[in-house]
């Protein structure tokens, strides 16, 4: 239980921290340190087990489907990192208490810091690779928020985004790598993966997995060529930099290499990829650090360089090198954290980090200066300090590489060269800041020593540097051993932790580096001049440029493809349909099925020819809109006749009624529109469209032909057989509509209702200016409501209602039904609107169309739901022949109620739609003098 707790505690602290924000910085710092202290305490009991090379495992099942378990693992390596994270974390918490200003959002700061701490602990303690990945990406995310803590600064935002892009992106590669590893091993549990080293290395996907995992590690650890994000992340508040870039974030990549060392290392690929990357990073970081005028910039590049060093050590692949690497992790963390904090103090007290302005601080803050100088000396590898020890081991290992011929010289030379640079930039840090004359117009002058407690973290770390440097075996020996053992899977080589190993080649290299470095620093102006000849690459600008190029070209590409042209989208749709259908259809060819063609009577033939002509004419002559409308009417009429001709009286009637309403609707709209369609497409586009249209038409023709001539059996026999006995009606189509497939009809009238409601809502606040006259320039006729029409329309309404009733009632047995009846009623009312006007008619309609629609739907639902009460499913119809005295036999079918719902909905919806449009018309503007009645 304690391991999950260790990870969880900081997150709980993060939730709690903001609550203490009101108590001031001290309160929140104390509150924030509690989780870390408890975590340390929780780790302490495990030490005996770990010292013996043991492992502590706490595992809980979580997502077996994913292979993720909630499992944590503590061994020497993870303990080492956990300690670094927690101890340095505690120091940072203390330091930040004094670093942050009271008016800053300390709650957020500590909360994020603890989140970050928890994520780091998660990485190092996870026993499941996927779980580790979760925490890995969480560090990217939380570090993003930490780096951008001062988000009003552009540099901070950019630095944060760059860090997120690089490390988050690397995390994705790592994700892939881990998934491959899991795939190879069959488990994501660390124990399994570490035990399967041979299997992994011999697997064909090993190079891929290795590359991906290393991409993750390299991006996180700021290895060349991904190193550029790290210096820019220095825009974070210094406690953040100190934490992220000494002990945590960047060490995550290192940790990963150490963690997976038994599983991945020891191959040539590993050697070349890791050591060369490390070497390049080592050199580049060291070189650039030399030329940075920004205090933190110098430290950041030195961090890059040291990370390169550690990576190079891991890359070497020897066990001793791995030990050295682990050792340097500890040492770098201590001196670099203290240096960052010192730099923060200087920044804090002088108001700048520019070393060209900061000079001679020794006079103003000797205490801080002493601490910083010791730490810097450790960074330079001065004997008696911890940095010296691991660097010696590094030099020694660089000599052990068995590279052929000339190449054997390269590692030691590179190591020495990097050492020279390290000494030079360390010297610069010491000399340029604390000596080198007087300060140059500092924003805060004169600088003072910081508050007492702000120095304590630095003191502790510097003390550690010295202790390790002088008494390595006592101070850090057991921990290093345990960590090394864990890294190497138990095969720890012989090594000796002493201040000096006597006079040997590594020591010579150290001396060379030391004096070479001092020499270089003394000649710094030449180097600066030399360096100044090269144009410095501003990675941030490059990154921003790349991002901006990405976004603008993405935007350009998007707006080119998604250009807002319906014509294009529609073309794509039609072409898609044609494309997918074309293969089957071309195989179909002109296919005439086994039923063959039946003879055609010539009236039908003529009808069809006229239909085709009018359809084509509509397309060809569509520019004259009214003409197109007339042609469309003809087509609609012929289609209805076709339905009648081919045995579908219900359809014929429906089509007819719908068509007229549609035409009226179109004319209502056309009133406001231009009466002509201008030519807008080029000839080529029109030809292209015509070709597409022809292809679509041809396809439909072929399919229809094949379909009509093929054999056919369907479920419809059932409907014919059961319509009368089961549905109580002889009009099978109607029985299907209100009974067999009544649910379709319910949906259909709902569609109608929704359309009307939508139309009503859409037009509610629409204002349209009607044209003063028609296309030919005639002013509109004054006579809005012609006398004769009015006189005939009025008595027609009751008659139409009766016909509706007739069509409605017979619908179950004869052609007709609620829908057609509804349309007849609607048309009769529309005629009133046309003949006598909106106001006149609206005044006489005794109900709101909304309510008619609602009532219709309600009837349909109630008719359907009535069957519930008999235990039958929804829409089960029942019919009864009731014999009333006098009246006689009378059929009562529940489906009739349903059909009544259809009837009402149709009326309500049709009229609501048309009236909504009609209402747009400003009948007061061109009022007729005949408007009377």
């Amino acid at each position, binding site marked *: 239980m304690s391991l999950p707790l260790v990870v969880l505690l900081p997150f709980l602290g993060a939730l709690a921290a903001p609550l203490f924000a009101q108590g001031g910085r001290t309160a929140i710092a104390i509150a924030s340190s509690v989780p870390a202290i408890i975590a340390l305490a929780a780790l302490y009991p495990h030490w005996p087990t770990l010292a013996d090379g043991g492992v502590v495992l706490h595992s809980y099942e979580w997502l077996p489907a994913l292979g993720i378990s909630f499992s944590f693992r503590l061994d020497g390596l993870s303990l080492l990192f956990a300690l670094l994270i927690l101890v340095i974390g505690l120091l940072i918490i203390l330091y930040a208490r004094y670093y942050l200003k009271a008016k800053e959002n300390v709650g957020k700061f500590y909360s994020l810091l603890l989140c970050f701490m928890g994520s780091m602990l998660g990485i190092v303690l996870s026993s499941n690779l996927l779980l580790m990945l979760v925490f890995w990406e969480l560090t990217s995310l939380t570090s993003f928020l930490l780096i951008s803590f001062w988000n009003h600064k552009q540099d901070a935002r950019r630095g944060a985004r760059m860090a997120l892009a690089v490390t988050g992106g690397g995390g994705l590669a790592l994700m892939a790598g881990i998934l491959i590893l899991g795939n190879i091993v069959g488990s994501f549990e660390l124990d399994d993966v570490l035990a399967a080293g041979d299997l992994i290395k011999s697997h064909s996907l090993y190079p891929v997995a290795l590359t991906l995992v290393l991409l993750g590690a390299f991006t996180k650890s700021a290895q060349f060529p991904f190193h550029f994000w790290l210096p820019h992340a220095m825009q974070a508040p210094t406690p953040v930099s100190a934490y992220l870039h000494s002990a945590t974030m960047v060490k995550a990549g290192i940790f990963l290499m150490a963690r997976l060392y038994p599983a991945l290392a020891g191959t040539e690929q590993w050697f070349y990829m890791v050591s060369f990357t490390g070497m390049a990073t080592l050199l580049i970081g060291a070189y650039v650090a030399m030329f940075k005028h920004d205090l933190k910039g110098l430290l950041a590049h030195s961090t890059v360089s040291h990370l390169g060093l550690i990576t190079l050590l891991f890359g070497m692949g020897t066990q001793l090198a791995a030990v050295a690497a682990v050792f340097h992790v500890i040492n770098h963390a201590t001196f670099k954290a203290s240096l960052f904090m010192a730099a923060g103090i200087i920044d804090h007290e002088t108001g700048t980090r520019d070393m060209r302005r900061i000079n001679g601080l020794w006079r103003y803050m000797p205490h801080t200066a002493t601490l910083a100088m010791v730490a810097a000396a450790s960074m330079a590898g001065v004997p008696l300090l911890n940095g010296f020890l691991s660097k010696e081991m590094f030099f020694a290992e660089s000599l052990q590489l068995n590279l052929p011929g000339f190449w054997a010289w390269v590692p030691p030379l590179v190591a020495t060269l990097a050492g020279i640079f390290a000494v030079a930039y360390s010297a610069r840090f010491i000399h340029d800041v604390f000596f080198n004359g007087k300060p140059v117009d500092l924003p805060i002058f004169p600088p003072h020593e910081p508050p007492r407690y702000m120095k304590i973290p630095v003191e502790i770390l510097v003390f550690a540097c010295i202790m390790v440097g002088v008494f390595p075996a006592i101070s850090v020996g057991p921990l290093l051993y345990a960590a090394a053992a864990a890294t190497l899977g138990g095969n720890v080589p012989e090594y000796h932790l002493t201040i000096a190993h006597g006079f040997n080649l590594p020591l010579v290299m150290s001396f060379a580096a030391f004096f070479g470095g001092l020499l270089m620093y003394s000649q710094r102006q030449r180097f600066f001049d030399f360096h100044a000849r090269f144009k410095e690459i501003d990675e941030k600008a490059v990154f921003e440029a790349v991002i901006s190029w990405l976004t603008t070209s993405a935007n350009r590409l998007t707006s080119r493809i998604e250009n807002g042209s319906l014509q294009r989208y529609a073309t794509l749709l039609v072409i898609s349909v044609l494309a997918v259908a074309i293969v089957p259809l071309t195989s179909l060819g002109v296919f005439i099925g086994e039923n063959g063609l039946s003879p055609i009577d010539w009236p039908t033939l003529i009808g069809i020819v006229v239909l085709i002509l009018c359809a084509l004419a509509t397309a060809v002559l569509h520019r004259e809109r009214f003409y197109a409308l007339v042609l469309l009417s003809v087509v609609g009429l012929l289609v209805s006749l076709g339905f009648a001709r081919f045995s579908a009286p219900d359809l014929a009637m429906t089509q007819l009624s719908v068509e007229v309403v549609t035409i009226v609707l179109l004319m209502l709209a056309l009133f406001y529109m231009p009466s002509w369609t201008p030519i807008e497409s080029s000839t080529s586009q029109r030809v292209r469209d015509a070709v597409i249209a022809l292809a679509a038409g041809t396809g439909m023709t072929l399919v229809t032909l094949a379909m009509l001539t093929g054999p056919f059996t369907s479920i419809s026999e059932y409907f014919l057989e059961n319509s009368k006995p089961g549905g109580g009606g002889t009009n099978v189509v109607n029985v299907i509509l209100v009974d067999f497939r009544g649910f379709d009809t319910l949906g259909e009238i709902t569609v109608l209702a929704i359309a009307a409601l939508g139309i009503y809502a859409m037009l509610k606040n629409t204002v349209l200016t009607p044209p003063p006259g028609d296309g030919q320039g005639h002013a509109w006729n004054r006579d809005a409501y012609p006398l*004769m*029409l009015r006189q*005939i329309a009025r008595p027609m309404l009751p008659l139409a209602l009766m016909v509706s009733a007739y069509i409605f009632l017979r619908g179950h047995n004869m052609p007709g039904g609620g829908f057609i009846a509804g349309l007849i009623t609607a048309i009769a009312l529309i005629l009133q609107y046309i003949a006598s006007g909106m106001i006149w008619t609206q005044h006489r309609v005794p109900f709101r169309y909304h309510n008619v629609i609602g009532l219709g739907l309600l009837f349909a639902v109630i008719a359907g739901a009535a069957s519930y009460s008999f235990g039958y499913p929804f829409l089960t119809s029942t019919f009864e022949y009731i014999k009333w005295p006098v009246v006689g036999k009378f059929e009562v079918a529940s489906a009739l109620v349903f059909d009544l719902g259809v009837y009402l909905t149709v009326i309500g919806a049709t009229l609501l739609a048309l009236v909504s449009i009609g209402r747009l018309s400003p009948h007061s503007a061109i009022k007729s003098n005949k408007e009377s009645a």
Partner: protein
Amino acid sequence: MSALTEYTITALLLIGGAFTLVGAIGLARLPDFYTRLHGPTKATTLGVGAIILASVVYFSFQGEGIGITEILITAFLFLTAPISANIMAKAAMHLGVDVMDGTRGSPWEQ
């Protein structure tokens, strides 16, 4: 079905067809809109009326009773044809559709 009935039906059908055709010919041939208006309002209406009548006779002798639907259709046609003609003429006058040469009087200028 008696021979008389058959003759009646045949005659009605042929008369109906003929009038319908004549109406259409008028529509196609007459020189201006106003003259063309006469074809459909009279000949066609009458022609279709005759055909409907044939239907009434036909079905009533099939033992299906007098078809009120047919009568409704006919009544409706005769009721509406003048209205249609009227409102179309009004539209034509409004649009100033050309009248044929030799027309006396003139449509109203609105």
